[in-house]
């Protein structure tokens, strides 16, 4: 059994699913599981962390913590970590987690295993694996020297967040004293789509150059919306200007591990496969039966995506309607 502290994450007053995944995994392994949550006006969220396995929540609130910055967030987090002295510190490998945790690890004088896709608890230690070369290989990370083990975990990698409303956490409220800060978030420009991020979505629908133009991505968006999916793209589609770079899946874009990845008109260049091959289930739709994507696809359809995708959308809709 280990003493585990999880850096919880919320944005716009909503907790991240990936935080629940970490809490559930730690709690299921029988660890003493604590969480640290930062923000402003988020007392209700602290209770929710208890339902996923946090025994204690350190709740840090301050108007200056409304938006994440590494500088402000690290101040109180470090104080708690140093006083509680956990065996293991975990966070999600999200835009905030990946920005923050190197600073935390450096301030504790320990190493950091980033973007882990496998994690197991063994006594008071963790054993982790992570991809390198965007998934063309994986490595085990050995922590050297004393001090807590610190890791960020890729969203969806652990799966299974378990809600139990009978579990509750002890909430310790802390008023942050932040002093003068150099880094300031002065504005947040919201995404227009309202769709989940490709790195966090449970389902990703991706398109390649075969989509022919930006307009045709509507087909994927419509099917994706039925599934609550994010829409990704191959490098070829991004280079052709069909989608912004933030949607690019592959070695020079985002690396994703959804439970379902649907590749539409993507041939499967090595750098693309690297970015999505850890997906749980892969579907490929391509006109070319020899396309490399079929070698890693669990289910393949050799055919014209312009015919298949609208039909799939209707079929998915039927399934969704039956189960709602």
């Amino acid at each position, binding site marked *: 059994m280990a003493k585990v502290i999880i850096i919880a994450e919320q*944005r716009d007053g909503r907790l991240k699913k990936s935080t629940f995944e970490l809490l559930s995994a730690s709690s299921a392994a029988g660890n003493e599981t604590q969480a640290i949550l930062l923000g402003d006006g988020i007392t209700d969220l602290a209770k929710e962390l208890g339902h996923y396995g946090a025994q204690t929540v350190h709740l840090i609130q301050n108007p200056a913590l409304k*938006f994440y910055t*590494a500088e402000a967030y690290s101040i109180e987090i470090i104080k708690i970590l140093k006083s509680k002295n956990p065996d293991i510190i975990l966070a999600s490998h999200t*835009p905030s987690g990946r*920005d*923050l945790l*190197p*600073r935390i690890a*450096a301030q504790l004088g*320990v*190493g*950091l295993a980033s*973007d882990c896709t496998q994690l197991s608890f063994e006594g008071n230690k963790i054993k982790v*694996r992570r*991809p390198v*070369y*965007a*998934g*063309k*290989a994986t490595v085990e*990370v*050995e*922590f*050297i020297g004393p001090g807590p083990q610190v890791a960020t975990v890729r969203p969806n990698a652990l799966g299974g967040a378990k809600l139990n409303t009978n579990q509750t956490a002890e909430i310790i409220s802390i008023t942050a004293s932040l002093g003068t800060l*150099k*880094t300031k*978030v*002065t*504005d*947040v*420009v919201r*995404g*227009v*789509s*309202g769709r989940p*991020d490709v*790195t966090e979505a449970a389902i990703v629908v991706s398109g390649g150059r075969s989509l022919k133009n930006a307009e045709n991505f509507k087909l994927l968006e419509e099917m994706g919306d039925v599934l609550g999916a994010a829409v990704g793209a191959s490098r070829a589609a991004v280079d052709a200007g069909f989608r*912004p*770079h933030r949607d*690019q899946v592959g070695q*020079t874009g985002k690396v994703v591990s959804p439970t*379902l990845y649907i590749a539409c008109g993507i041939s499967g260049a090595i*750098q693309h496969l690297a970015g999505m091959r850890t997906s*749980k*289930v*892969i*579907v490929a739709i391509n006109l070319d039966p020899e396309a490399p994507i*079929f*070698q*890693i696809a*669990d*289910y*393949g*359809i*050799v*055919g014209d995506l312009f*015919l298949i995708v609208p*039909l*799939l959308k209707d079929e998915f809709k*039927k399934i969704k309607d039956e189960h709602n």
Partner: protein
Amino acid sequence: MNIYICIKQVPDTETKIKLNSEQSGIDTTGVKWIISPYDELAIEEALRLKEKNTGSTVTVLSCGPTRVVEAIRTALAMGADSGIHVDLPETADNNLIAKALAGAFKKETKIDIIFTGKESIDDGAAQVSQLIATYLDIPYITVVLNIEYSPQGVKCKREIEGGAFEIVEAPFPLLVATQKGLNEPRYASLPNIMKAKKKEVRVLKMADVEVSAADQKIRFKNFQLPPPKQAGKKIPGDPHSQAKELVRLLHEEAKVV
């Protein structure tokens, strides 16, 4: 202005990764080495800032074995003024690299801004930028898509999740980690490649930057290639029956929808 860039030399994205016989690393035989693509954006941004501020200098740093001098020369050919090669073992982890770079920066007289790529495409950990800034006790802004400069500092557009952006401000000196979309990196012209050969590249050893093997905090071991996936089912039939069957399989067999 005193402008700095940190770059990493990595295998080209088209490289087919093979492991060495001990599975303690990759087999680098025949690997084509390039500057990590996000670092090229850092170089370009540094050069543009220099062009707007007469009298500025751009210094490029890279850690690793002797081969990384090639990457430094490429940055010099793009227009950087001088280079610093910090001689570190191939197996150096992010912490050792960042501490060595911070050590090199502490020997400089004045730093206004450091540019890095938001992550390298080899280990993809996205740690070194934040670690350097933390060790130097300066602010950092990562995954940056746009930068406005003022005499006091910068105002950056930073990419976050779900297609949203933050506008983040911080004063000089600071570190900015660049994201694709910030600019289009230039190519080195032939005359500039020739000129780059004469530019100075200083070499610093671990003792010079006050790091030791004890600054290595993690080690990668037991490398594995992804297990070969069995090619799955190709679903036969006309588009209607293909779509129907696929959704049935995803629902009943794979249980993912």
